[in-house]
């Protein structure tokens, strides 16, 4: 680690030597990158970014499986470097609502295989004798919690990287430009010289947007203030040694924490009004009295936090000798959805992002990004953190600021799984938006698209289908938040008559060129050399046969295919396809997302409706299922695909965006005779899907499970080569360590009282109430939950090991501290409703 001459070239350049950059460099060295340049504009070991002022405590249990597992992996790494102190952590509740949230925390702890339990007030006091017990109602104890030392960890990682590879560390080196040629990264220009490199990682924390912009790409994050003070010396702590003597306390209701540090107590807050910074306004290292990321505390914003902390821990904080020794507006990165920004930038080959990462998960992200770079894929599913997820809609400064402002207030908050963003809306609307709005649509948002979840205009269906709906009314406010029984009415109406579903928010792109078939074969598990007009629903795998995506590919011509995928993952899917385009230019990728709007017409009367307005013959014989063709609907030329995600007869009609409104009106008028109803995504995404057992990417489908386990082996193993073929073939041969099953809830109120309805991510337990782990150590949990009104059950999906993957098997699910009996209805992908798919094929 000598301060070498600045190198003129390197295999990999990592920009930023905070905990993230150090971790990336270390893991790259571990995985065999031999010539790495790690640089930072600041000095070492603390170059002045967010790593230098973090409170450094780690609470492993998150409601997100991905984040919990990444934190567990990070704790393992910190401990391995002897930079972790296991103090435990306690989240305390001051309110009943928060106590319920802590029950949900236990639920998540069990689901993600991390210890955790509820504490009474007295038990909290035993751990934290200085807490004011009158203020709290109880706590959640996380024995795995603790504090780390990321600056020290950085030193260890650099030393280890240096032992593994030729690591050049260049501190006090400012990046001036990134050189990009023909869409590929070529060099990093700094004030110490220019280093040629084909692989560059932007791990510059709050400065990442500035660095990335030098290559013409965007990192949608904004610096935001997290207020932090340190109070000491506190006499109580004098009798204890070391960095931390008692568990970290999170005061969830006030969105604060109190963490002992030596004989100080660090008090941090997220409750103050969001204070966002422009990256350009951040002080330079020389200008900052403390560091660029530690501007002075905005006192007025902290007053309420001050008061709340005194209320919770007066014994410590009123120590007559203790004062506020340190107080900052600590700057950290906030993204539009609170998740990190990791992975390859789709517009510049060789340029990677690893940003907006908290101390608690940084070592793991470093590891998985390194895997992604070296091996082509991360070992853990990082779809929620993919840097491309805001691509082409959510990277503007205004959007990032609005969402960060809104999202900041959710930190430590009780966030419902279906909670909707309110800011920067509507952002993406289609030709139907106006009509839907008039029908009282309740819009949810996905990837910026406004999508109707249900329609208030359908309220009359509640009476009409009262019998089917009543058993599934949700009396508890939490269960019914962001939900309406109208969804069930719409569902039943669609099954009986006909529905029109607008704006599914698909990402659509065409693959065109002489190499299209060969290329499509390489990308997809399903056979692509099919008749023109044929649609194939197929998994997209990585080399390890883990799920990248599931989507539909339609052959639209001899040398052209159309890819249709969910909007939420559209950016990442497009990046994956782009990344694998043939280098000879024989295939072009043409994005159609913003050019086309989509209208689904589904239900027993769908053909009657379409027939009456289509110029072409749309009979079953003339227009068979799983095919596509151009038709004319009224005045509108549309590309029609006979497919249904809700298990009904019908079509998806793709029309030019500007004719969407006309298409809607035409179908609506033609359907009036059949009482056609607009139906929302509540049916499309949940009730219809669950009844049909359709898997959803990010829920059932993720890198941790194989297609065989997901029950998606209907393609077999085709002749042509495709990505992940070998592993996929093996997986099909192997006995599944777990199989995706559909379960039904037997009793919604086993102890009496209000009937409760699970929403997903709950642990599945044995009849004896024990968690279930499969042979690969993966824990069983509810991947999706939703009511199936046509099958008369609240349905759950989840992976179960062979021992429990038996139809008729009785199990339990934990939900808010209660256990509910459930039964395995289906093992594999057979639909619960219309198992032979007769409706789609009719």
């Amino acid at each position, binding site marked *: 680690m000598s*301060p070498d001459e600045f190198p003129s070239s390197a295999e990999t350049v990592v920009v930023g030597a905070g905990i993230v950059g150090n971790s990336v460099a270390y893991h790259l060295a571990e995985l065999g990158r031999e010539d790495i340049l790690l640089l930072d504009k*600041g*000095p*070492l*070991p*603390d170059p*002045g970014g967010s790593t*230098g*002022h973090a409170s450094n405590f780690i609470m492993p249990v998150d409601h997100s499986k991905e984040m919990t597992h990444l934190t567990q992996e990070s704790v393992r790494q910190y401990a391995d470097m002897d930079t972790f102190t296991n103090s435990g952590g306690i989240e305390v509740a001051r309110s009943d609502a928060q106590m319920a949230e802590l029950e949900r925390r236990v639920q998540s702890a069990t689901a993600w295989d991390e210890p955790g339990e509820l504490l009474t007030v007295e038990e909290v006091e035993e751990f934290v004798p200085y807490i004011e017990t009158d203020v709290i109602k109880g706590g959640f104890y996380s024995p795995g919690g603790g504090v780390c030392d990321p*600056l*020290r960890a950085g030193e260890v990682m650099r030393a280890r990287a240096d032992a593994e590879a030729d690591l050049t*560390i260049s*501190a*006090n080196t400012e990046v001036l430009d990134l050189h990009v040629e023909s869409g590929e990264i070529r060099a990093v220009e700094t004030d110490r010289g220019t280093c040629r490199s084909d692989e560059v990682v932007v791990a510059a924390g709050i400065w990442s947007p500035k660095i990335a912009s030098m290559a013409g790409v965007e990192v949608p994050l904004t610096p935001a203030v997290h207020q932090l003070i*340190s109070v*000491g*010396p506190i006499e109580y702590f*004098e009798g204890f*040694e*070391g*960095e931390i003597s008692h568990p970290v306390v999170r005061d969830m209701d006030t969105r604060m924490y109190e963490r002992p*540090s*030596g*004989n*100080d107590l660090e008090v941090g807050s997220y409750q103050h009004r969001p204070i966002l910074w422009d990256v350009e306004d951040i002080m330079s290292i020389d200008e900052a*009295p*403390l*560091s660029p990321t*530690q501007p002075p505390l905005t006192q007025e914003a902290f007053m309420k936090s001050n008061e709340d902390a005194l209320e919770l821990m007066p014994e410590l904080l009123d120590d007559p000798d203790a004062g506020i*020794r*340190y107080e900052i507006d600590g700057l950290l990165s906030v993204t539009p959805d609170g998740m990190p920004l990791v992975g390859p930038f789709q517009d510049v080959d060789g340029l990677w992002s690893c940003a907006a990462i908290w101390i608690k998960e940084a070592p793991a992200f470093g590891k998985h990004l390194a895997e992604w770079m070296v091996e082509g894929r991360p070992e853990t599913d990082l779809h929620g953190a993919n840097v491309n997820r805001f691509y082409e809609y959510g990277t503007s400064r205004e959007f990032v600021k609005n969402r960060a402002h809104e999202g900041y207030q959710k930190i430590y908050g009780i966030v419902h799984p279906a909670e909707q963003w309110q800011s920067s809306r509507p952002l993406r609307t289609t030709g139907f938006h106006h009509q839907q709005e008039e029908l009282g649509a309740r819009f949810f948002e996905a990837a910026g698209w406004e999508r109707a979840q249900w329609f208030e205009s359908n309220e009359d269906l509640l009476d009409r289908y009262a019998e089917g709906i009543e058993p599934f009314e949700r009396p508890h406010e939490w269960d019914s938040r962001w939900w309406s029984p109208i969804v069930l009415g719409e569902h039943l109406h669609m099954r009986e008559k006909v529905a029109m579903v607008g704006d599914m928010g698909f990402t659509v792109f065409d693959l065109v060129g002489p190499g299209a078939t060969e290329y499509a074969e390489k990308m997809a598990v399903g056979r692509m050399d099919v008749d023109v007009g044929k649609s194939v629903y197929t998994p997209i795998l990585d080399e390890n046969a883990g799920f990248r995506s599931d989507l539909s590919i339609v052959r639209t011509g001899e040398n052209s295919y159309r890819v249709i995928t969910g909007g939420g993952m559209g950016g990442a899917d497009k990046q994956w396809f782009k990344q694998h385009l043939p280098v000879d230019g024989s295939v072009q990728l043409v994005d159609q997302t913003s050019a086309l709007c989509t209208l689904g017409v589904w239900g027993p009367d769908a053909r009657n409706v379409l027939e009456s307005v289509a110029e072409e013959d749309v009979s079953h014989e003339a227009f068979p299922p799983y095919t596509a063709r151009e038709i004319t609907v009224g005045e509108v030329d549309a590309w029609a695909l006979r497919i249904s995600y809700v298990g009904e007869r019908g079509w998806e009609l793709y029309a030019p965006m500007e004719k969407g409104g006309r298409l809607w009106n035409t179908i609506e008028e033609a359907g009036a005779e059949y009482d056609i109803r607009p139906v929302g995504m509540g049916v499309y995404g949940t009730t219809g899907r669950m009844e049909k057992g359709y898997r959803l990417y990010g829920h059932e489908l993720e890198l941790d499970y194989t297609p065989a386990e997901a029950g998606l082996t209907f393609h077999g193993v085709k002749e042509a080569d495709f990505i992940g073929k070998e592993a996929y073939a093996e997986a099909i041969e192997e006995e599944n360590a777990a199989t995706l099953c559909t379960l039904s809830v037997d009793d919604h109120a086993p102890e009496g009282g209000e009937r409760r309805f699970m929403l997903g991510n709950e642990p599945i337990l044995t009849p004896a109430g024990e968690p279930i782990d499969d042979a690969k150590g993966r824990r069983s949990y509810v991947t999706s939950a939703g009511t199936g009104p046509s099958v008369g059950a609240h349905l759950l999906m989840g992976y179960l090991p062979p021992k429990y993957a038996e139809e008729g098997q009785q199990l339990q699910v934990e939900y808010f501290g209660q256990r509910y009996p459930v039964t395995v209805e289906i093992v594999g992908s057979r639909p619960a409703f219309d198992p032979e798919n007769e409706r789609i094929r009719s």
Partner: protein
Amino acid sequence: MVLALVEHDGGVPAEASLESLTLARGLAAEDGELAAVAFDTDGSGPGEGGGGSSGEGGPADGDGLADDLAAYGVTELDRVTHDRLDRYAPEAWAASVSQLVDELAPEAVVAPGTDRGHEVLAGVAARQSLPLAANCVAVAPGEPGEPYELERQRWGGSLIEHARLDAGTKLLTVSPHEVAAEPTERADVTVRSFAPSLDDSQFRVRVSRVEESDEEGVPLGEARVVVGGGRGVGSAEDYAILEELADLLEGTVGASRAAVNEGWRPHDDQVGLTGTKIAPDLYVACGISGAVQHMVGCKGAKNILAINTDPEAAIIQKAEYAVIGDLHEVVPAITEAVREAE
């Protein structure tokens, strides 16, 4: 004429005074009249040197002082004599200089930017209702009676202010160590005695006595020398070598947060934002990387000497001096060398 206040120790002019004389000489170039004012004060300072407020070693040997000042171009030496001026008295000095100003009507009065120089000239400024430009580093004289354009230090030297000083008599102090003291062609010095008119009120405050330093048991925040140890020290036992050096320099041992968290030192020893803020003349930082929170605690130090194995460490950016090496070898070597020197 330009009048320069000269502090001396038994007739030997202080370095800071020679520096300010050098600057004053430039201002006097117009008419060549450079007068010096010195007090025949019988202090009994324990020694000469730093801080500028030298003690005095007895009545100035006027001839010796005049001789020394002649080498700096002084043409007139005004020796202030008064039977009660045997010891420094802020108001009496200010009143005396103020009276000289009345008598000589100099274009400027220049003093060294020492505690005493500032105090005296501020007193003169108050008495004369004149502005005072402190901590000058360069001054360009104008025509007689015209403003001076000057440069002076502000913000602890982080900024230079270019300013215009417009006054009948310009009062200036000169920042120490910024202008090199340079002798010039010897001048003929006229020595004259100046007897100020002083009464009791000007002797309300004076040096009552001078005490030897006694740094024993000085709290960390008030110590003049602090020897600090960080994670690089490695163990509680290894602090012994730091203690030895600290004792030798009549200083105190401090520690970084990392070292305190390791349990090597008590919390009271912690230097930094969440510990004690120190303001010594010298801070020896041993095996301390220089985390921001630590550096804030020692930014009051006049000098930092860093001893660290890593030449890229943050502490090196902030220190005045550094030794690259293992503190376990370097510190004992310094201790030994200091002993030999003493």
